[in-house]
């Protein structure tokens, strides 16, 4: 049985994916308009992964994320307004404007943060899983990481410890085909999910654009972890529709993928695909998807607008992060 397979659950999944999509689209526009102070890495096309996984978690479960972290933040319950404010560099941001896009975190929601160090979240999640294990309350640690990050040795180190200590850890590799501008096949040998096998860790490769497949695999992994069954590695095949980083065409002199490839993945869009499915099934009324798109789009734009002119942090606020300040 697929977790969240009630009609209400399905609608929630759809809503979350749309929330992420609309937020990312807003940021894409903001970037183009020169409104963002720093770089942003968008998640468009990958929404089913964060959404399907985080639907299995609650606030006491921990996640670590990546430089492409807005989707994970929102799916795990982070507040869109506080996220926009952060990315705009405002004092009302979830990190007070100190962190920005690559560091959005909300510890109260179990979000240990996006991370600018590729692979950096792996060990953090393993540590959080150790904490969860010691707590003994059935919580888990989840690490989202990319196919490119799978080349970092710390992944093998984590698989080893997770197997030895039966850590309640779920490693979610979002294989979106690229490590920056390198196609995965040029930097990753073999199948990522198989890397768990020598450690005796369960692993599975799924269609990351099929939210029910994600939810099912994540649900099984989370349940196993909560019950002392240890770690799972999930490799979710997906695709990033936008570039590695917004504005990349300004500095790239050569193309690294064909338009046709991008177009072919647009056809597999996880949101419209799931919307169609729910309509077909009768879980939602026909037309509900576009209605939701509109209302969520408005909600997101309102959230962004509401904070776009919030004050920047005061430079005196730096003082509070020095060692010795409490």
């Amino acid at each position, binding site marked *: 049985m697929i977790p969240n397979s009630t009609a209400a659950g399905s609608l929630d999944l759809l809503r979350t994916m749309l929330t992420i999509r609309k937020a990312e689209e807003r940021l894409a526009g903001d970037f183009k308009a020169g409104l963002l102070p720093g770089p942003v890495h968008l998640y468009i096309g990958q929404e089913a992964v964060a959404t399907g996984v985080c639907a299995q978690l609650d606030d006491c479960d921990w996640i670590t994320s990546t430089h492409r972290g807005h989707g994970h933040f929102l799916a795990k319950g982070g507040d869109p307004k506080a996220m926009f404010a952060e990315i705009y560099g405002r004092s009302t941001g979830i990190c007070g404007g*100190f962190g920005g896009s690559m560091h959005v975190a909300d510890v109260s929601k179990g979000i240990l943060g996006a991370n600018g160090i590729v692979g950096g979240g792996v060990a953090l999640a393993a540590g959080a899983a150790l*904490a969860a294990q010691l707590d003994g309350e059935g919580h888990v640690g989840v690490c989202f990481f990319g196919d490119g990050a799978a080349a970092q040795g710390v992944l093998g180190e984590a698989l080893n410890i997770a197997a030895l200590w039966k850590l309640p850890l779920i490693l979610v590799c979002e294989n979106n085909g690229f490590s920056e501008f390198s196609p995965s096949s040029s930097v990753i040998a073999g199948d990522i999910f198989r890397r768990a096998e020598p450690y005796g860790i369960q692993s599975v490769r799924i269609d990351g654009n099929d939210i029910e497949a994600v939810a099912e695999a994540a649900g099984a992994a989370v349940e196993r972890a909560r019950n002392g069954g240890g770690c799972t590695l999930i490799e979710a095949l997906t695709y990033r529709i936008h570039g590695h980083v917004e504005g990349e065409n300004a500095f790239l002199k050569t193309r690294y993928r064909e338009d046709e490839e991008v177009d072919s993945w647009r056809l597999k869009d996880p949101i419209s695909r799931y919307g169609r499915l729910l309509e077909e099934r009768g879980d939602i009324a026909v037309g509900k998807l576009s209605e939701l798109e509109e209302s969520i789009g408005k909600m997101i734009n309102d959230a962004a607008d509401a904070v776009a002119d919030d004050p920047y942090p005061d430079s005196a606020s730096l003082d509070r992060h020095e060692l010795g300040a409490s």
Partner: protein
Amino acid sequence: MTRKRLIHAINDALVEEMERDERVILIGEDVGASIFGDTRGLLARFGPDRVRDMPISEALMSGMAVGASAAGYRVVCHLMYANFIYTAFDAIANQAARLRLMTNGQIRLPVVFMAAGGGGRSNAGQHSDYPHMPVASLGGVYVATPSCSADAKGLLKTAIRTDDPVFFLQPTSRGGEMGDIPDGEHIVPLVSAKVLRSGDDVTIVAVGAMVRVASRAAEALAEDGISVEIVDPRTSYPLDQDTIIGSVRKTGRLVIVDEARSAGSIANQVAALVAEKAFSSLKAPIVPVTTRDLAIAYAPPLEKAMIPDADRVVDAVRMTLREIAP
């Protein structure tokens, strides 16, 4: 007072803090067997949940320490020889030192990285560094550098209770000397230098194992009527500026003794501090006594020639005294 070797003072601190707070956990390679003796008996006493023998995976270990401390534990991460902090450096530098700022204080990290530094036993080029300054350079990690049993105990207890990362660098690769420890609860605050010996003619700032070297030099100099004041910063970073400056204001002369390489030595930090903030009191050039900018060599005479000894300190002091006040 009880007389103990420094390494056993550390053991006492660990026992007391683990007794005091069950959220204190210890991870490290062979912390069960305890190569140095500092973690001896802890596994039997506190069990394998709280005392964890790690595989040889320093990058993971330091990152897990960050993750587990972000998730609510007080983690002591034992890195064995101080050179292995380089192996563990990524999570210390890119995560531990900055998560507080990047999350606007949502994440505080009660984590202690401990390791044994310094040469003197022909452990050669990869087992003899005293790398306090590379860690200090990160800005977000306290660096505690005890020189004696009492301070080792008191500083480690404080470090474990501190909500920010601490690198606890024990001068024990030479075994750790005997020293008196006050009975009962003994705490030494971070960032509090100690004036070990009062004097009028010249200030020696010495850290770690070099405090003893400085003391021997001071005794030799006393026979010639030269009155030396010895300041042990005890915390290499941040410095207790007032105590150092106060001493130099009194004596007007400064020698700094550190077994770290010159380029990575606290001599630079202390000299810069004094040249900025106590310049008008200075009567002579500031003379560093450090290890030359090489890895420690293996052959005993080479090693002996590299690491500062009392003779070199005596010479340095005499040099500052020869200089005429400008």
